[in-house]
């Protein structure tokens, strides 16, 4: 569906993208995860034809060159900034963008109504956008790109600065799009979003893809061990006996508590259970994409 090969883009002395290649299959949700300035928006801008790469090619659904307007017809782009006419109402914004995408008559009316419902704005559709809250604007910003039911969606950090309620609504909408078989590219610097929504994720930093795989595989490869903290009903009378169940040589033992790291948390817990000790509390902290990024770059995502 989308094929990106050897993209390079430089703005004066800043390298925005450095030999970026990836492929996204039809119906897949692909995440570009990286901190601010990693090159995510530049990648999106190149994919939708707003920016020309210095080098490399982009192919959308087999058609090259997204700078050609007809190629962009299959594309829905949710920009990071709010791209709305604040002087107009939600309905007027949707009508205008719908017409630009060639919709008219009953079809346009239906789509406007559907999009207003998705955004939860049906009741306030005739109010000026300038009167909306930040979250409402974000939701409208997103549905403006869904009007023409594009098979391919590019979402550039669609949840920046939104309230939890709007955030959930946006997630639900994206999940619904996934179910409908849309191909989605989603950029974010929130690892929870990538973990929740994306089938595959590319870790982007300083314009380079550091690794790219499913979330699980990335965690296995780069996330490091899980942290387990278990508290038992009785004091540990024989800690050495427990040591035989865990592989971490640096495990810490305190009266009725044990802390250790493991790459196979479920197996370790099963073994501890077999020891006959009864658990009072149990904390399992598995690795996540934040750890993956930390291990790959030595920095946190939001540094």
């Amino acid at each position, binding site marked *: 569906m989308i094929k990106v090969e050897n993209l390079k883009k430089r703005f004066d002395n800043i390298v925005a993208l450095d030999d970026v290649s990836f492929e996204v299959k039809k119906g897949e949700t692909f995440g570009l995860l990286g901190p601010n300035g990693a090159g995510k928006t530049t990648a999106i801008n190149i994919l939708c034809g*707003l920016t*020309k790469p210095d080098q490399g090619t982009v192919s959308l659904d087999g058609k090259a060159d997204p700078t050609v307007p007809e190629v962009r017809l299959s594309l829905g782009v949710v920009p990071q900034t709010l*791209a709305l*006419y*604040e002087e107009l109402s939600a309905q007027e914004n949707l009508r*205008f*963008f719908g017409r*630009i995408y060639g919709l008219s008559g009953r079809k346009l009316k239906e789509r406007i109504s559907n999009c207003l419902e998705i955004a939860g704005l049906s009741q306030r559709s005739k109010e000026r956008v300038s009167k909306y809250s930040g979250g409402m604007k974000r939701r409208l910003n997103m549905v403006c790109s869904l009007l023409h039911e594009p098979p391919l969606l590019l979402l550039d950090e669609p949840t920046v600065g939104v309230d939890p309620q709007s955030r959930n609504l946006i997630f639900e909408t994206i999940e619904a799009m996934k179910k409908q078989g849309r191909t989605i590219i989603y950029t974010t610097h929130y690892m929870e979003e990538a973990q929740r929504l994306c089938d595959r994720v590319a870790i982007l930093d300083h314009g380079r893809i550091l690794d790219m795989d499913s979330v699980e595989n990335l965690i296995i490869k780069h996330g490091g061990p899980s942290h387990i903290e278990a508290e038992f009903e009785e004091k540990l009378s024989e800690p050495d006996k427990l040591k035989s169940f865990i592989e971490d040589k640096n495990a810490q033992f305190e009266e009725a508590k044990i802390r250790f790291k493991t790459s196979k948390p479920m197996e370790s817990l099963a073994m501890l259970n077999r020891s006959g000790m009864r658990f009072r509390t149990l904390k399992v902290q598995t690795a996540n994409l934040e750890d993956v990024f930390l291990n790959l770059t030595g920095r946190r995502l939001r540094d």
Partner: protein
Amino acid sequence: MKKALFLAAKDLRVLLSDKGNIFWVFGFPVLFALFFGAIYSSAGKGPSGMKIAIVDEDKSDFSGSYVSRLESDEALSVVYLSRDEAVEQVRKGKVAAAVILKEGFGGGFEALFNNDEPRLEIASDPSRRMESGYLQGLLAKAQFEALGDKFVDREWMKGQISLWRDDMEGANDLDAEQAKLYLDFMDSFDTLLKDVNEDDFRAGFDGDMLNFAKLDVSREREGPIAPFQITFPQVLLWGFMGCTATFAISIVKERTSGTFARLRVGPIGRAHILGGKGLSCFFTCMLIMCILSVGAIAIFKMPMGNWLLFIPAVLCTILCFVGLMMLICTLGRTEQSVGAAGWAMLMIMGMLGGAMMPLAFMPSWLRRFGHFSPVKWGIYALEGAVWRNFAPTEIIGPCLVLLTIGLTSFLLGVAMLRRQDS
């Protein structure tokens, strides 16, 4: 084309949703029309109520007659002061000038033609030179009129001739032959004053001393020029300038708010988007033209002149300003910078082009710069159609200049936008 029309319709809707925009595009030109129309409506009469101070040190019948003539002139408002007070009032800017009638002002020909010792002094405010020039004309007129009254007074004339004769006879520096010629003329004039009958004498010397006829330089037309006919082209230009600035700012707003980028990732090209902007600016200018024309005709009873010339003149002017709009929107990257730079550029064009004050009021060297202002050519073309009664061939020149400026600005603006975006 359909998409460009959607864009234009959207822009008009956005424009009309902002009261500030409505004022600059529609309200300001109307205020301009009312203000300058009122000024031009009294332009034929000259300034009125110019305050001057009179210092009558002569206190003769002639000075009294002279001052009463000044008092009766609508253009002047006269106050009587002492010399010191009058000069002080001029210095403070409270009166436009002080007119001092020195002792001997009413001394007849001797006082009138004595260049060595003028009996009339004027102290005028240096910042009001135009009024001062106008005042000198009024003073000369009053002096000629007061003299005219004296000329029909036989006894006064005889006395003046007698005084002149005494001077002539006592003049040692005059050649005897030349002196005889003057004295013979005075004898004849004395005989005339004595023998001519009253009716013929009055018919010869009474009446306006400054009398002239005005030649009409315009071609055949129906009725006189209405004051609003003169300001109408300027009013239209202000409307177009307001529209140009508003749409230039709206392009920048689209770029900074992200809607321009959203449109560019849609299935339309940059040409469509910019074409749509140009189209909406064009339509708005046409709307302004229609509103102002209907208002001028219906409310101010303004004759439109030649419609067949007005239409191409107005179209070329609008196209020129649509092109300028595209150039102005590239003058900055924020709404504030484009708003400030755009208005500054348009104001300068307006000033040099005669949209603020008639070009005739400017020094000649500054007037030459007006040739570089599209405002000048717009006003010229529109005036040609509205009241100058141009022939069709005469309007081609300014229209071509306007189209050239418009096209050049448009292409330059598009190229700069493309460069900024890349």
